[in-house]
Every structure is written in C-alpha cells, then in structure tokens.
C-alpha cells in the first residue's frame, strides 16, 4: 500500500467505480425494456392492425426505462475522465462510493419502468380508444418510478464533485463508501416496487377506463409510500456525507459507518418491493371494484405501513451506528 502514491489509488477507485456503475447500471433498464417489448409483441399479435400505435408506445416506454442507465453511463464517463490532479486518498473512497450508488440505484428503477410500458401496450391492444389515457398514465407512473435512480444520481454527483480533502482519511473513507451503498441499495426495492404499482395501474385503466382518476390517485399514493425506503437511504447518505467525523485510528469507527450504510441500504430493498406489491394489488382491484376504492386505499396504506417497519428498524440501527457507538 505504501509503494503507490495517492494518485494511483484515486485512479484505481475511479476505474473500478466506473466499471461498477455501468456494469450494474445496465442490468435494470435492459430487463425492463425487454419486458416492455415482450408484452408489446403479445399486444401486436392480439391486434395487428394497431401495431403502429403499440410500437410507438413501446418505444416511448422503453425510452423512460433507459433513463436510469443513461444516468449510470454519465457517472461512469465522469469517473473515467474526470481530472483528479491533486486529489488525496479520501477522493478514492468518494469515487468508489459514487460508482456503487449509481450502479445499484439504476437497477430497480430500470426494471420497474418496464412494467407500465408493457401493460400500456397490452392495454392499447385491448382498448384502442384509450391510447392517450394509457400513455399518459404510463409516463406518470414510470416518471415516479425513476425517482430512486435520481436520488442515487444526486448522491453520486455529491461524492464526485464535493471536496472532501479537509476530512481525515479515517473514518471518512468508510462514511463515503457507506453513503454510496445506503442510497444505491435502498433504491433497488423502491424502484422495482414503484414500477409494479405503475404497471398495475396501466392494466387497471385498460380494463376499466372510467376508473382512470381513482386508479391514478391510488397509484400515486401507493408509489409515494413505496419511495419511503429510498428516502431513508438518501437521509442516511446525506448524514454520512456531511457529518464531520473526528480523526481516529480505530477500525471500529470505520466499520460502524460502513455498517450504517449497509443496514439502511439493504434494509430498503424488501419494504420497497413489498410496498410496491401492495400498491399494485390495490390499483388492480380499484379498477375492478370502483365503489370499494376507499376501503382498498385504507388497507393498502395499513399494509404498507406494517411492511415499512423493518426499513425503520434498519434506519434506527444505522443512526445508532453513526451517532451512538
């Protein structure tokens, strides 16, 4: 470790981080776009005369799903080519954290945005008169679904461009890597879950166009709750990035901060997915049983709140690791 200067290690972190950012970032959007295309094909086989409209809708939906991996590409290019002229070792931790944040963060949103696109295409084949309503709802739902990827991009940008050189290497290196993991991992569940809700709403609107208003409302509420684990992740990331940690030679402080990032990061995956499942089911059934919309909204919210609990435990453990031990 002592034979190589700080510059070399910064470049190592930048290139490894760039690889992670693009490698992981490519996964989600590809899967999501593939799902959209597969359902679009089924839609065309069901109703070949509408292939023009369906094809157009497929491309629009795929474009939104692509955006998460475009973010990842931008972060990767920045990591490869940014000027690290007089950077210190702490920058290496920041760059690795940026790569982790954007890489993981793009996975959930990419896959999730595929659901509304596919369901909208199927819906067009069933009810051509509703094309514009379906496309609008698809766009709204996938835009909200991209939010966790945007959180990850924000954290990545802060880690890339903020000057950490005044901070001590130990334990700030762990805080910065932990910050990347916290938002990046938590975004997986929220992105996927938000996408499930959006997909369900497109299916519901295709089935029951008169329910569009209620379905969209329940979808937005359900997606908002599904975003909460990603917000916890963002909160812990911000604390880790902006809190001033006194210098220490002890390994335990560094591992505590890394553990804090892992706790909220992983902890957001399950509740995000679960909240999305609940929201998807709720919007599907609002469309099938419109008069029960209030009951359905109520049970969706209660169920989502209980499902959220382990994300809250994880955040509490993170905060204890940062502030108490």
């Amino acid at each position, binding site marked *: 470790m002592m034979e190589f200067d700080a510059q070399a290690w910064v470049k190592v972190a930048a290139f490894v981080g760039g690889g992670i950012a693009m490698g992981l970032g490519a996964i989600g959007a590809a899967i999501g776009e593939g799902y959209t295309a597969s359902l679009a094909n089924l839609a065309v086989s069901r109703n070949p005369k509408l292939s023009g409209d369906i094809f157009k809708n497929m491309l629009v939906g795929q474009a939104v799903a692509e955006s998460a991996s475009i973010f990842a590409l931008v972060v990767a290019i920045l990591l490869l080519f940014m000027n690290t002229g007089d950077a210190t070792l702490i920058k290496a931790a920041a760059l690795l954290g940026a790569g982790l944040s954007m890489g993981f963060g793009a996975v959930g949103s990419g896959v999730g945005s595929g659901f509304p696109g596919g369901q909208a295409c199927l819906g067009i084949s069933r009810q051509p008169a509703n094309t514009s309503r379906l496309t609008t709802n698809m766009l709204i739902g996938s835009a909200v679904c991209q939010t966790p990827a945007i959180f990850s991009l924000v954290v990545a940008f802060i880690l890339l461009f903020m000057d950490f050189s005044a901070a001590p290497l130990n334990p700030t290196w762990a805080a910065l890597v932990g910050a990347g993991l916290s938002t990046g*991992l938590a975004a997986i569940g929220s992105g996927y*879950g938000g996408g499930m809700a959006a997909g369900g709403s497109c299916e519901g609107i295709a089935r029951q166009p008169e329910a569009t208003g209620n379905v969209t409302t329940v979808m937005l509420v359900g997606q908002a709750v599904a975003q909460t*684990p990603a917000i916890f992740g963002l909160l812990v990331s911000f604390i880790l990035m902006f809190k001033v940690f006194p210098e220490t*030679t*002890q*390994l*335990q402080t560094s*591992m*505590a901060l*890394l*553990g*804090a*990032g*892992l*706790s*909220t*990061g*992983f*902890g*957001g*995956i*399950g*509740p*995000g*997915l*679960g*909240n*999305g*499942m*609940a929201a*998807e*089911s*709720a919007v*599907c*059934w609002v469309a*099938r*049983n419109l*008069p*029960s919309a209030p*009951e*359905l909204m*109520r*049970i*969706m919210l*209660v*169920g*989502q709140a*209980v*499902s959220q*609990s*382990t*994300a809250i*435990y*994880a955040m509490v*453990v*993170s905060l*204890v*690791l940062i502030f*108490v*031990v």
Partner: protein
Amino acid sequence: MAIEGMDLVKAAAFLGAGISMGLGAIGPGVGEGMVAAKACEAIGKNPREAGLLTRTMLVGQAVAESTGIYSLVIALLLLFVV
C-alpha cells in the same frame, strides 16, 4: 497501522450489526407486502368483510415480522452487549 485485538473485535461487531439488520429487513418487507397485496385483492372481491380481512392481514404480517425482530435483536446485541 497496527490494529489491536479489541478494536478489530468491535469493528467486526459493528459491521455485523449493519449486515444483520440490513439483510434481515429484506424478507419481512417482501413477505408483508405480499400479505397486503392479497388483502387488497380479498377486499376488492368482498368489500363487506373489510374488518375481518384487515384483522387477518395484520395477524399474518405480525407473524412474518418475527424474523425481522430476531435480526434487530442480534443487531442490538452486537452494538451494545458483546
């Protein structure tokens, strides 16, 4: 840098606490979400039984929560006791 024994042990304990609660939150989140989803479907099919269905959902979710509680306990033990 020389890492002494006690420091390494504490470091491992803190990392373990983070991993324990982090991974431990995944399962209950997904499982309880499935319960909530099916409860929505059940109420969609039979809205008059909303009370009974909600109660059943909550009991089911409470059981699914148990492993998450175990993870929290282990995390707290690692943080404060060992």
